[in-house]
């Protein structure tokens, strides 16, 4: 992990020294991670792309304040977290954690319930389980288990204590397990074809 960190630090130093190519290199290295996180969080490709632009412009503008001892990607995710929360609040999306039983409809996917049951917990179903989580659980799960940040990096990115991250991760997995069990039960039912 130290090699990428060193590479990021070197690129940041080159940016601060006025090397335009280093900005392009930093962008190339991190754009897919930031965009993936924002897309899975907002569930909208145009919004995720707009937010990712905001994140990188803000990062480039405040590069002088970046602590070279920290991982660059976790700093970027902290900026992305704030941008995403501002976006969700502006869209009046509920950020509370008191609606854990939000419904997930097994029939709303392109594959249909029979296909999902056959595939067990594959990537497509995982995406839908993630999308059904409340945003604050979703972002913790994405950073920790999809983007591979450590618990303390996730806590730093989200601006919450590590204990809060662990609780959110535990509850996110519990919610996903309950939804998944609902799919398992659907597997045993006969699904009428149209």
């Amino acid at each position, binding site marked *: 992990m130290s090699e990428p960190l060193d590479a990021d630090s070197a690129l940041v130093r080159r940016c601060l020294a006025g090397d335009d190519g280093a900005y*392009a290199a930093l962008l*190339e290295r991190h754009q*897919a991670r930031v*965009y993936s996180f924002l897309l899975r969080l907002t569930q909208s490709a145009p919004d995720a792309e707009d937010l990712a632009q905001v994140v990188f412009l803000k990062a480039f503008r405040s590069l002088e304040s970046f602590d070279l001892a920290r991982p660059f990607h976790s700093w970027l995710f902290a900026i992305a977290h704030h941008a995403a929360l501002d976006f969700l609040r502006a869209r009046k999306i509920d950020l509370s954690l008191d609606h854990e039983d939000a419904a997930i409809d097994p029939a709303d996917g392109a594959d249909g319930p029979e296909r999902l049951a056959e595939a067990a*917990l594959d*990537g497509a*179903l995982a995406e839908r389980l993630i999308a059904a989580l409340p945003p604050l659980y979703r972002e913790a799960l994405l950073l920790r288990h999809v983007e591979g940040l450590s618990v303390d990096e996730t806590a730093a990115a989200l601006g919450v204590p590590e204990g809060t991250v662990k609780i959110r991760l535990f509850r996110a*997995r519990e919610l996903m*397990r309950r939804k998944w*069990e609902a799919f398992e039960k659907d597997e045993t039912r006969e699904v009428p074809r149209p």
Partner: protein
Amino acid sequence: MNKTEDQFDRSLNAALASLPQLRPSAAFSSTVLASFKRERRAALAPAWPLAAALAASSAAIAAGAMSLTFSIPRLATGAAKAVAVLEAAGRLALHALPAPQAGAEFSAAALLAVALFLTISMPRRRDTRLIGAKS
């Protein structure tokens, strides 16, 4: 942890680890870099439009104040002129500047301080300065 939970955790870990990284559109990089370059160019550009507008407005206010007499109609006229000049300067500055300029506030404060100094220190017409003085 029962068998179902264990099975779920293993499946979930595998599924999450296999999720692909998604990429933005092909134009994303160039759009971000172009926006950033535009911002930097704007920040480095000279602030002469703002400075010129503020200098003009400050000079106009100072000149107006020097020729002002303390009759109420003239005071009102002078104030109206000053407001109009300031508004025009503001419009010009907003139109001319693509982005907030570093030091613009400092320039504005300095120019207004100069205008105020000129207003106070330069000799006024005798009939305005000697109001209330014994003839």
